[in-house]
Every structure is written in C-alpha cells, then in structure tokens.
C-alpha cells in the first residue's frame, strides 16, 4: 500500500494571482462528469482547472478533461485494509488539495467542489470578487440547522462534542456541506489541512469530514474567517428539499430552494443564477435539464 505522504504535489508555472478550481474524482463515468467540466469552461473561468484523479479513473475521462483545458494531477488511492476505512478515502482528498496549495503559494482564490453533481452557472471567480472579502472563505449552507437534521449532520457534529453544552451551542447553526467552498487560497489550505488532520485524529467509524467541517466552521477562529452565504447571495444551492429522499427527516423546512428556468437554477428571491449548483442530480427534472444544457 502506498502511503498518501508519498504524494508529490506538483508546482505550476504562472499561477501567481490566479484562481484555481480543485476537484477530486475516483471511478466516475464521463457522462456524469461532463456537466461539471463543460459548465466550468462555459462560465468563463480563466484560472487553473485542476482535477485530481486516481488509478480507478478511466483513461477516457482523463482525455476529455485534458481536451477541455483541465490539468490532471495523479494520485494513488491506498487500498482499503478494513471496511471502516471507507471514510478515510473521503478525508484524504483534502490532504491532496492542501498539499497542492502549499506547493503553489501564489494562488489568489481556491475553489473546491464536488465534481459528479456540481455545475458552475456563473464564473466562480466573478462571484468571489463581487461578494466575498478576499481574506475569507464562503461555504455552502444546507438551508436547515444542525439540530434539525437527526440522521446526518446533527449526529456527525454531536459525535465531536465533548459536552452537552457544546452541542447546544452548535445545534442552532445552519449546517454546511463539504461540496462547495471557496475563497482565499492560504486560508483554504489551512482549513483543509485542519479538516484532514482532525479526521485522522477522531478516527471514529461514524465520524465524517462534513461533521468536522461543520464543527470548525462554527468554532473560533474559523468562525471569524468563514461565511455561509444566504441563498439570496447566490453562492451555491444544494438540494436537500423536494426530491431528496430524506427530506421528511428534517424537523424544520429547508430554506432557499431555487427555481429552474431554461436549465438554470435561479435564486427564488433575486431571480439571478446561483454560482454553484450542487446535488442537482437528486431532483429528476433538474438533472435532466442541466445535463441537457451542458452536453457538448
């Protein structure tokens, strides 16, 4: 088994002052990845588009991303030694991303997102320039509080709390996801480093990177560094509403669900496109329209 510390993060030329998008894929088909790739190109994004792949990524997927101007970074995902290691594969993605940012300290903003279920409807650099303090991070909100999610985010965060009072403090905050966050590249490096290191230390079978990220986001000092934009601000939308299988498990309504027009998800308040649409695949009508829009 190859340890992840053997990963040699590449250095890139000419990146000073530029932005970077970072996505990580395993074994996912091009059909499922095409909307992400095509939408980022069409958004007008001019930074470095990085895709971190592993040994399970199909050669055709690499070729298609390369053709669209992405830079491929290779890593080797260690083989699982025990069933409980699955989550570790999720955590290590932040190790790779942080290592790349550490080796390329000139980046301005870093934009992290999931890949299989994300499209960029607006150039993410433009959104960051117009809406975010350049020394902060924006992170995608779930539209409901941690306390209102008794199956996923709530228990994930509770697991990390050492006292009942700690959970009482955290449960009132809106949950966030690991699926889309972006901002100052130095800060992103520190944040992802911390998420990875803490996940390694917690080592509980029911712990998740998203639980750790929720905890950090709402705790000093990251609570002074991270903003969770409201739906009307148009950073991102995640479908946790109609169409999501577990919607009935929430104990409060999900806020900020968008409307779909011509294959574009719009803020229901401002009627403007939301920069990052995440988990759109969970609503059949959204998936169909968005896949059609971003076919080549």
């Amino acid at each position, binding site marked *: 088994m190859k340890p992840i*510390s053997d990963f040699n993060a590449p250095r890139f030329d000419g990146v000073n002052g530029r932005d970077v998008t970072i996505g990580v894929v395993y074994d996912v088909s091009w059909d499922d990845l095409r909307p992400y790739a095509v939408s980022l190109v069409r958004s007008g994004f001019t930074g470095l588009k990085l895709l971190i792949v592993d040994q399970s990524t199909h050669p055709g997927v690499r070729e298609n991303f390369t053709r669209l101007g992405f830079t491929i970074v290779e890593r080797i995902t260690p083989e699982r030694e025990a069933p409980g290691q699955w989550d570790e594969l999720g955590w290590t993605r932040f190790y790779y991303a942080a290592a790349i940012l*550490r080796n390329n300290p000139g980046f301005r903003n870093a934009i992290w997102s999931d890949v299989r279920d994300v499209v960029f409807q607006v150039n993410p650099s433009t959104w960051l320039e117009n809406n975010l303090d350049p*020394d902060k991070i924006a992170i995608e909100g779930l539209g409901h509080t941690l306390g209102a999610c008794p199956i996923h985010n709530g228990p994930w965060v509770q697991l*990390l709390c*050492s*006292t009942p009072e*700690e959970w009482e403090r955290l449960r009132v905050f809106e949950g966030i996801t690991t699926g889309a966050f972006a901002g*100052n590249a*130095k*800060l992103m*490096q*520190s944040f992802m*480093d*911390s998420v990875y*290191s*803490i996940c390694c*230390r*917690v080592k509980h079978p029911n712990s998740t990177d998203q639980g750790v990220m929720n*905890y*950090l986001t709402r*705790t*000093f*000092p*990251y609570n*002074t*560094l991270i903003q969770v934009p409201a739906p009307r601000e148009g950073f991102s939308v995640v479908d946790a509403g109609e169409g999501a299988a577990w919607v009935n498990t929430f104990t409060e309504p999900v806020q900020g669900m968008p409307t779909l027009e011509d294959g574009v998800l719009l803020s229901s308040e401002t009627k403007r496109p939301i920069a990052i649409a995440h988990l759109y695949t969970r609503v059949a009508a959204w998936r169909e329209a968005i896949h059609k829009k971003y076919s080549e």
Partner: protein
Amino acid sequence: MNLERAHQIHGWMAEDELEWLAQQASTHKRIAEIGSWKGRSTRAMADNLSDGAVIVAVDTWVGSDEDAHHAELNVQPNGWLFDEFKRNMNGLSPFKVQPFQMTSIEAAHLLKDARFDMIFIDAAHDYENVKADISAWKPLLAEGGLLCGHDYGTWPGVTQAVDETVGSVRLAAFTIWEKV
C-alpha cells in the same frame, strides 16, 4: 501543570518558561502562538487548557535563516517540520490546536476579525521582524488580554523591538516578557 509531553519535544523553552506558559494558558480561552517550531511550548499550553479554549499556532514550518534551523532542517525532507509539529500534538482533543501554516504577517492579516485574550510572540529574533510581528498582532489583542513573548534580554533585536513597540514590559519567567 501537566508538562510531561512538552518535555519530550525539542525546543528552546526553559522549564520555568514552560511552567509560566502552562499556567497562563489554563486561564485564557483564545490563545495565539506566533512561532511554534516543533510544538514544545504549544504542547505545554495545550495540555493545560480549560474546556473550550483554543490555541492558534502560526508558523511557516520551513524554518528561518537562523543557524539552528538550518542545521536541523537541511537533512530533512520537505514538510518534515510541520509533520513533526502535528505528531507532537497527538493525543490532544482534536480541536484544541489550530495550525496556520503561513507567515506571522499573513496570519495576522487574515485573522483581523479575531480577538485573542493571550498572544505569545516567539517567531523571528531580528529587530525588524520582531517589530513587524508585534505591530501586526497587537491590534488582535482583546481588551485586558495578555501580550507576551520569548527571548527578551538574550536576543538584542528582540529586546530593542519589544522596548520600542510594546512599551512597558516586565520579565515574567526567565526570558519571557509580558506587557504591563
């Protein structure tokens, strides 16, 4: 004070300095340590924190131009020092120490909206850099907070910069200065 793990970590912090830092850490909630190296003083503070207290540890973890750093780091692979620091924090509650791998000035700028009730400065030792560190971090001190640092009286650059930038100080433990 619990200093068992701190004693196992190489560094330049004397025993009574570790004791003093641990004591101070036990009564403060939001601590910034500027310059952590392998984490000897970080660990001394972290093992004695109260519930809910956090240490923000700022360092580039690539060493500096000082000879002592060169001698050790020249024979190690890239990233070794930061890994060593993280290893030395093993066993702590995972959220107690938050490392920020960047220069002191970068970190002070990014953390501009944070306020700390204890700031411990132990990064560079030359006059210009120490002065810059103190100037950058002083505004982040909460009202009534503790501003302190290491190597007063032993490094002329530190002593001069502290005298000029902090004003009235006293020696708290061996070479640790604190603002009065």
